């Protein structure tokens, strides 16, 4: 249990020096493209590019190891569940059936199902590098500024910035309280019965939640005293100005987004790419 997941390390390279707004908009455009399309060719191109960007950003593998493991477990789980629940979903989508081999009953492996599941897995996997780049290469204090500049109301952006500011504090509080309660004999493991375990968990969360309520009181009074929310707009210390590279990155993402949509509308005539007809 480590609070190290969100470790922003200051670096200077092409990706890190992009403005937060650029990275947010590129992230949203590219993930929207991947989410929309079910064409494995478009997804593979975006995946390859995002891996290149990940390499360019020089993010170290040990920073993202835990995430990669989680994602792999999740993808494997989803892959198996999809087949168990709907082994013929690919046939339904593509309208043809090319049987590769039969396992038993209606559990048949078809090339349609294989294409559907591989596409889907790639679809999920391709967003991960993009997310990693966005979250690890953007200064947390700049995130709120970029969300606001991307058009979100600054009060909501400020709430988000407070979240990032207090997240590590609350993890530390939680660990302190959990350690204190466990040293008094509170058992959270599977050895305890479900009802008792919920009660024990409450004994840890209640102090955490009620101390947070006190904090909310203090912080909102402080902000009120300093006149927060008086004006319609505000400026941010951490906002970075847009440069030439930002425009280039935005242009590239927009192009990829439009190309993916165009491919679906004009070439495939559906969200799916059907090589079987």
């Amino acid at each position, binding site marked *: 249990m480590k609070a190290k*997941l*969100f470790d922003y390390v200051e670096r200077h390279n092409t990706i890190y020096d992009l403005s937060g707004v650029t990275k947010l908009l590129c992230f949203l455009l590219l*993930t929207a493209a991947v*989410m929309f399309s*079910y064409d494995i060719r478009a997804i593979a191109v975006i995946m390859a590019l995002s891996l290149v960007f990940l390499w360019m950003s020089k993010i170290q593998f040990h920073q*993202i190891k835990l*995430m*990669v493991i*989680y994602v792999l477990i*999740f993808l494997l*789980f989803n892959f198996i*569940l*999809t087949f168990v*629940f*709907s082994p013929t*979903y690919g046939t339904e*989508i593509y309208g043809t059936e090319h049987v590769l081999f039969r396992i038993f009953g209606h559990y048949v492996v078809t090339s349609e199902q294989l294409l559907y599941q591989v596409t*889907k897995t790639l*679809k999920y996997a391709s*967003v*991960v*590098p993009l*997310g*990693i780049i966005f*979250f690890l290469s953007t200064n947390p204090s700049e995130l709120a500024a970029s969300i606001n500049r991307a058009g979100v109301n600054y*009060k*909501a952006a*400020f*709430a*988000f*910035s*407070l*979240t*990032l*500011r*207090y*997240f590590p504090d*609350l*993890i530390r509080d*939680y660990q302190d309280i959990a350690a204190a309660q466990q040293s008094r004999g509170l058992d959270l493991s599977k050895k305890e019965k*479900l009802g008792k*375990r*919920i009660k024990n*968990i*409450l004994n840890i*969360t*209640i102090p955490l*939640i*009620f101390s*947070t*309520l006190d*904090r*909310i*009181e203090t912080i*909102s009074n402080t*902000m*009120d005293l300093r006149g*927060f*929310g008086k004006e319609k707009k505000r400026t941010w210390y951490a906002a970075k100005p847009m440069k030439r590279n930002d425009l280039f990155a935005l242009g590239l993402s927009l192009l990829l987004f439009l190309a993916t949509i165009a491919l679906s509308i004009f070439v495939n005539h559906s*969200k799916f790419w059907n090589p079987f007809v």
Partner: protein
Amino acid sequence: MKKMFQVSTKTIVATGLGAALFAVLFMYVKVPTGIPETDIQTAYGLGSFFAVLFGPIAGGLIAFIGHALSDALQYGSIWWSWVIASGVSMFLVGLSYTKIRADEGEFGWKDVLRFNIYQILANVIAWIVIAPVLDIVIYAEPVNLVFTQGAVACLWNAVSCGVIGTLLLFAYAKIRPKKGSLTKEE
């Protein structure tokens, strides 16, 4: 008088810290049920508690930001359909904001019933309608898989809101001074 959609400084701060707390609980404090990937999330109990105290906007944003943050930290990407469903469920629970007066020290059995009706309806709408439909529209997941997942999520989240949310509201109402508890001495 409490206004349903008013955004004060306190709402914003409660949203910010609530979302952080939601993310912490979402990542660390789950009750394993024995079935993989379907733990009881205590975060929803907390979310429903904050939604009742600070209203639908705070509730919705707390779950939306908190869920998105913990997804991003754990998986490096965000599972939008479920994040949106989370936000919607807590927004709907928050609609009971003007009806329940736990902050004035009042939380009786009638309020327990009222809160639980709201939270069960909210969970059913979010997890049996919105999450599966978005899964199908955005990710083209197989229909029976997403509805099974949705039903399981609905059940455990309703349990979390019902047990943890109710207990938190009880505890909170107890430490708040009752309205009109002071009388003028003659």
